[in-house]
């Protein structure tokens, strides 16, 4: 599979900073293919989160294009981008960010857009991620690792084009963190998604296909 599902072309972003502007992303280009798992590392404040926000259509770049599954959505209205995110982008956050009042199966079923996609079933995902026995539990009754696995299931439930993971191991210990990244990798491969992960955790980089380093607004291969 060589289809490019996520493509950033010449993306630049700067923020006002005291007595000038600081260029956080400087003419960045990036392409991630179906089935490819890419990691972005870099020091704190290097703009990793900004890059992920732009790729996730949460933030508009000053210039450049973001193409997801062949669609350029940057110029759409915010409500259209919101609807697009639900179908085409799977997010995994630092902490699980599950809704505290929903049981696991409802986290998936109430989020699933059945008109758009019913090929992925909640049961299959829970089974793949080894958390079928958590289907009727609230987040408060699960371990950190289990919650993060439910969050992974939620990211995949609408069969999106790309998966964006923001420090998915930040709230977990080393063993569990590694296990969670393995699961992201396996699902990405199995379901043919383009996955982009921002991380500090160098111990999981061997699980990715490519590692990119973000320093001084530039992206370099390692």
């Amino acid at each position, binding site marked *: 599979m060589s289809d490019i599902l996520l493509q950033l072309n010449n993306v630049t972003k700067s923020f006002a900073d005291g007595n000038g502007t600081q260029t956080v992303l400087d003419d960045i280009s990036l392409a991630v293919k179906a089935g490819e798992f890419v990691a972005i590392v870099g020091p*704190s*404040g290097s*703009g*990793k*989160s*900004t890059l*992920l*926000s732009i790729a*996730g259509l*949460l*933030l508009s770049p000053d210039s450049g294009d973001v193409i997801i599954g062949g669609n350029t959505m940057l110029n759409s209205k915010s*409500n259209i981008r*919101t*609807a*697009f*995110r*639900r*179908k085409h*982008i799977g*997010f995994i*956050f*630092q902490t699980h*960010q599950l*809704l*505290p*009042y*929903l049981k696991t199966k*409802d986290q998936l079923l*109430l*989020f699933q857009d059945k008109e758009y996609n019913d090929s992925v079933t909640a049961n299959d995902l829970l089974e793949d991620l080894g958390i079928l026995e958590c289907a009727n539990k*609230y987040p408060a009754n699960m371990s950190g690792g289990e919650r993060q696995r439910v969050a992974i299931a*939620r990211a995949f439930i*609408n069969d999106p084009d790309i998966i964006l993971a*923001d*420090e998915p191991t*930040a709230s977990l210990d080393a063993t569990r963190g590694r296990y969670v990244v393995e699961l992201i990798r396996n699902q990405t491969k199995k379901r043919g998604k383009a996955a982009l992960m921002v991380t500090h955790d160098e111990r999981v980089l061997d699980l990715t296909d490519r590692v990119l380093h973000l320093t001084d607004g530039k992206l370099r291969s390692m």
Partner: protein
Amino acid sequence: MKFALRELLYGKKKYILIELLLVLLMFMVLFLCGLVEGLGRAVTSAIDNRVADYYILSDSAEKLITVSELPDGIINEVREKTNSEVTTLDIQRMYLQKQGEERKLNVIYFAIDANSFLAPSVIEGKTLEYSDKDNPIVLDDDFMAEDIHVGDIIIDSASGFEFNVVGFAKDEMYGHVSVGFITRDSYTQIRTRLNPQYGTTIHALAFKGKPDDLDMDGKELVKKQDIIDNIPSYRAEHLTITMIIYVLVIVSAIVIGVFYYIMTIQKRRQFGVMKAVGFGMGKLSAIVVSEVSLLSVFAAVVANIFTFAMSAVIPQKMPFHLLPADAVSVSAGFVLISIVSSLISIIHISRVDPIQAIGGNDE
């Protein structure tokens, strides 16, 4: 609705406390509502209960029956000209004494034709028409609490005229005073005893249905509701307390809006995440409106149950009279204003930037 129900059930403890507050507020509003109506009924019920639709008064009477004055012969004149049923009504405030007792009781006489449509139905004893006693009187049931019974003799204090108590009618009051229904004949005798020059005049004519083609020279045709509104003090009392009720309804509804807003602020990040993963404002607004509707409808229903249950057990003398129509309109107003007040939460959510879902202190 699925989200709303699950969230409310998950946070039961928190929401039950809020519900408790709302139920108490709504209960207070509904109870006041019943008191307003009850107090209002103490002023108007004797007119309200009459099946007359229109009254004719003298045009200088300012729509007040007690100061109106019409010539005696008018009833026959009018009967010739209209097909509507018509009868006479005189209203006179006096004092009564139970035979052998000194204590004077306030009474308002409604002097009527015993077999006319103005005659009250009775809850005990006989009506004026079917009584075989001389000088019969049918009293408001509040007189029962004064230890007066069917068969007693009571005396008009000023004239010494004796009445036979033949029956009791429910809820018959005028201007906070309990009513006694007497015949025109008794009334004329009392007036003549007090003032031998009493020339027979009448206060008002009452009609069933709207009379047509009448010569209204020196007279005025007045609707039943206008008669009620012009009873002294009625309008001022009614308006004041009604205004308090609506202020309370608005306050209770805003309480729910403010509570909900505080909880919304606490869930800022949660809404940010929901927006990031693709829930649009339409969906989020629907969740908010469903939750607020559920909370307010539930509070209104519980408060209604409490109030109606309580109205069944409060003492007879307490002026409490809650109309289902009033309870419904107050409850509906409460629910509607609650939903409107949830708008501040929706506006707050619309300003949440989904980008806060990404990154911790990275930027």
